[in-house]
């Protein structure tokens, strides 16, 4: 049935192209954020540039876009999501507006968080994105609670919880997985394994067979996937999300990828083996997807179009963020608490 095959091909090409677009938007967003952050980071002893538009630590997910895109493609707006310090991709893929996100990175009143959080705390509750988090593994118990809440309230929402390979060595990983399993919560755990924890290669700090084996040791079914292959991530996530939605309890996905940039934007990552990044770039998720699109017969122009559209979108976001007003100082006293807040020191 060549007609059917062609139709299937075309539909899967469109699907992949949609995933590609998400990845391209994340890439463009982070490239722009990196560019506008130069000198704005005080980590690693580097001096702060008082005029940088993006301040403080900026953690880029460059090279890891397939995980965010592939997983979030299977989530509804009403589903919840928690993230890490490296959360731009997850937030964008979950549906957040790039202008509001860029405004947040620029510390503008029109940012997702009204300029109060910045990159490390980016959140968009309106799309179910309950927050990036500056504390490694801290999102896990929060995701568990959101899933427990969904179950108690009888909603159909499910929760996705992203965390890094370094987070599996913190206590909340054990506690959260155990909790999710005994209460059979609607929760998808995603370990986004980029092989590094700050300046340290995670494998030497991790006993046993890694994230999936640990999850199994706590009684969860777990799968491992090539995290640079957006279709593989999408397929695996679709299956796991379906199981979660069907009441199958928590599921675990271990996505293998690679952190192309330093830990934060100013980290030159001199601790890496020579050639490591170069060979990783062969597996760049956008490049892989573009090759696959070409194989599916998608014209090069359509890919270039997607890249250009992403670029245009982010440039508009940059322009809007540049023009947006900064928060009024009085806003520093707002949204702390209803009881006991005030100017009184």
């Amino acid at each position, binding site marked *: 049935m060549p007609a059917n095959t062609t139709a299937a091909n075309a539909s899967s090409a469109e699907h992949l192209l949609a995933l590609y677009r998400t990845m391209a938007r994340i890439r463009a967003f982070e490239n722009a954020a990196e560019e506008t952050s130069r000198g704005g980071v005080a980590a690693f002893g580097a001096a702060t540039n008082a005029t940088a538009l993006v301040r403080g630590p900026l953690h880029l997910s460059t090279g890891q876009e397939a995980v965010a895109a592939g997983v979030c493609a299977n989530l509804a707006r009403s589903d919840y999501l928690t993230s890490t310090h490296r959360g731009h991709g997850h937030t964008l893929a979950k549906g957040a507006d790039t202008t509001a996100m860029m405004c947040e990175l620029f510390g503008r009143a029109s940012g997702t968080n009204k300029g109060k959080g910045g990159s490390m705390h980016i959140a968009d*509750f309106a799309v179910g994105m309950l*927050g990036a*988090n500056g504390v490694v593994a801290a999102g896990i118990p929060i995701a568990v609670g*959101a899933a427990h809440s969904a179950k108690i309230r009888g909603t159909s929402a499910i929760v996705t919880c992203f965390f890094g390979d370094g987070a599996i060595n913190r206590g909340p990983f054990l*506690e959260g997985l155990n909790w999710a399993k005994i209460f059979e919560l609607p929760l998808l755990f995603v370990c986004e394994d980029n092989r590094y924890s700050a300046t340290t290669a995670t494998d030497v700090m991790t006993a046993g067979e890694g994230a999936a084996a640990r999850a199994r040791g706590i009684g969860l079914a777990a799968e491992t996937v090539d995290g640079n292959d957006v279709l593989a991530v999408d397929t695996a996530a679709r299956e796991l999300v379906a199981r979660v939605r069907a009441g199958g309890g928590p599921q675990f996905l271990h996505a293998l990828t690679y952190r192309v940039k330093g830990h934060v934007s100013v980290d030159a990552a001199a601790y890496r083996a020579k050639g490591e990044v170069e060979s990783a770039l062969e597996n760049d998720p956008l490049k892989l997807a573009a090759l696959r699109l070409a194989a599916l017969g998608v014209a090069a122009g359509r890919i270039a179009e997607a890249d250009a559209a992403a670029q245009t979108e982010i440039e508009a976001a940059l322009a809007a963020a540049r023009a947006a007003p900064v928060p009024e100082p009085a806003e520093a006293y707002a949204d702390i608490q209803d009881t*006991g807040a005030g100017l009184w020191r």
Partner: protein
Amino acid sequence: MALMSYAQAACQALAAAMRADANVIALGEDVGHGGIFGQYRGLREEFGAARVIDTPISEATIMGAAVGMALTGLRPVVEMRVVDFALCAIDEIVNQAAKNRYMFGGQGRVPLVARMPIGIWSGSAAQHSQSLEAWFAHIPGLVVVAPATPADNYGLLAAAIDCGDPVIYMEHKELWGLEGEVPPQHTVALGQAHTARDGTDLTLVTWSGMVHTALAAAEQAVQQGVSVEVIDLRTIWPWDRELVFASVARTGRLLVAHEAVQAAGFGAEVAATVAEELGVPVRRFGAARIPVGYARSLEDVARISAQELLRELMLFANSDSRGRSMA
């Protein structure tokens, strides 16, 4: 009015809140069997295991999960058993619950009540006897409550569950059995102190278990010719500055007493504020900076007795106008 114990009062306040709002739930270790002090007795029978949730021994996740629950529409009441174990959940309290609303620009609210009893717990030694209310008062985003009586434990717990903020709710480990009258549907506004005894010579500000010690000491002070006004702060943050200022303006001197270690305790905040604002003599009497020992002879050194408090009161009452001893 009904006579009930401090534990029963909290239990009934929680039951009433759970009846009124299906989103109010309780979670923590052993709550399903009524809590180890009976402060959840009968709740699982009435509300079921889905709303009175027995949890694993996972303090960090108990608290962290409560944050996730609160963000998504529930009003969790979290059981930490004693503040000493809540030390296993400090990131979740301080970096998550307290900062969530602010950090995310007001997108979320964290209406949870975290119960973590303070105080010396007879014979339980250093790891089960701490009073750490000052810690939480120091953290923006938190409300801190410390009831001293059954009526207040009913009324303040009701108010805390009703409050949209994360509330650190500190019962006292040795008051569970204390009985008292509780008015029906009682609530006590957060942030309002209570004048537990009127007096004219000196204002004694205190809270939690020490309220009872203070009242006993004040009673004895009368016989020595000193009239002590006792204020039970009830809410540590925000504390009732107006009531305290008004009292001190009348009496002209302030003593703050608490069971917590004196050094960097919340008494310092009250004393410093009053000294700054009113310029009158201030004095504190908190515990020595020592861990609580097991043997009674050691534990007694860590406790403040009515006798010792009386001695401090009298010394202070008889000091000069700058608060210096006249000996």
